[in-house]
């Protein structure tokens, strides 16, 4: 472990699953390193990774704005109609007096998902320009901590469950926002699987420790 350019990095990489130590070796574009014991992927080399992260994260943010702006589903019952929007869910909880659940739900389905996407985008931009090592470190720590509180995918499945519950009772129309929400959920799933925090930390070490060979 040493300190280069104020960045703490390590010559050793330990497998997250089985803790076997490995030497931290530079890779070529497209290669990936696997654990010698359990074959879990330890880290990859992808020179375009930051571009991809920025693209996906920004797309996710735009789609998230769309998902919030329009109706997710509309229903017609006996001539009357109702519709559901993402902020509308929170507002209706507030109107019914459920302030605690509204407060929690706001964070779980609006604040944290947006924050995760924004962190990915910002980290991608900063690491691409090789600037802002202190902020990237703080943001990666935050990302590691809040990713588990991002429940947008659970909310999406909940909408589907509610749809099935309503199926016999009302005419259901799917709104544009529902597809946008599905896309955001897919993007978040992809980002968390392809670019998990430990992979981002690995690139953080490579980019900011002054190596001529970045990534």
């Amino acid at each position: 472990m040493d300190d280069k350019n104020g960045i703490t990095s390590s010559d050793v990489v330990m497998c997250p699953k089985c803790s076997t130590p490995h030497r931290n070796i530079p890779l070529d574009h497209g290669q990936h390193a696997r654990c010698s014991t359990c074959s879990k992927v330890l880290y990859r080399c992808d020179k375009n990774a930051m571009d991809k992260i920025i693209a996906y994260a920004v797309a996710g943010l735009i789609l998230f704005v769309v998902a919030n702006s329009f109706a997710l589903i509309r229903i017609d019952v006996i001539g009357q109609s109702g519709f559901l929007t993402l902020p509308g869910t929170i507002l209706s909880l507030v109107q019914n007096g459920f302030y605690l659940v509204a407060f929690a739900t706001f964070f779980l389905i609006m604040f944290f998902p947006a924050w995760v996407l924004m962190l990915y985008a910002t980290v991608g931009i900063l690491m691409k320009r090789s600037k802002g090592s202190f902020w990237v470190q703080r943001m990666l720590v935050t990302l590691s901590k809040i990713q588990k509180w991002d429940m947008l995918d659970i909310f999406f499945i909940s909408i589907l469950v509610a749809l099935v519950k309503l199926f016999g009772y009302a005419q259901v129309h799917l709104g544009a926002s529902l597809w946008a929400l599905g896309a955001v959920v897919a993007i978040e799933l992809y980002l968390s699987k392809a670019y998990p925090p430990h992979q981002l930390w690995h690139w953080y070490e490579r980019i900011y420790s002054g190596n001529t060979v970045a990534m």
Partner: protein
Amino acid sequence: METLWQCDPIVRCEVCSLAQEPNLKTCRCARCGALLHPNPKRAVSKSWAYLITAMIAYIPANIYPILITSRFGRYEENTIIGGIITLWEQGSYPIATIIFFASVVIPILKFLILIYLLVSVQYPIGKDSKVKKHTLYYATELAGPWSMMDVFVVAILAALIHFGNVSVLPGVGASAFALSVFFTLLAAHAFDKRLIKGVQ
């Protein structure tokens, strides 16, 4: 606290995955400051506190209605279990099963697994290996947030169905259930899987 992991010459930080020789004085990661090894007494008692709160909150979550339907002035209250039974009787077997799993099976299983893991830190019970216990813990962490699905479904239906004659309102059980899930998540997080020991 130091004696517990003095045998590990190199440790991986959970938050920033830095492999380092642990600083025995501070027990914190050199890069991100996170605890490298949990303080056993503190982590266990914190986890117990959260878990017991979650279990207590689960009782009103099932006694009080989670969903209230008002049709033409007539109020119909639905508890979690009552709702599942109604769905089953109506023939929606898949949805009834999903909700049964998400709102009854998974929360109770989580309680039992966390109790087992917490007790096994202090007393050697059971013959499960370290790997099996890690798998149990990982399963708990994975399935935990999905119990929030019931709360979301209630919120969605309440937001959607607000007509003159028919409307759906959330019930007190929804708040209690949300609290229970929230504290279970906190308990699982406070527990810290590095406390798990193998069979002696």
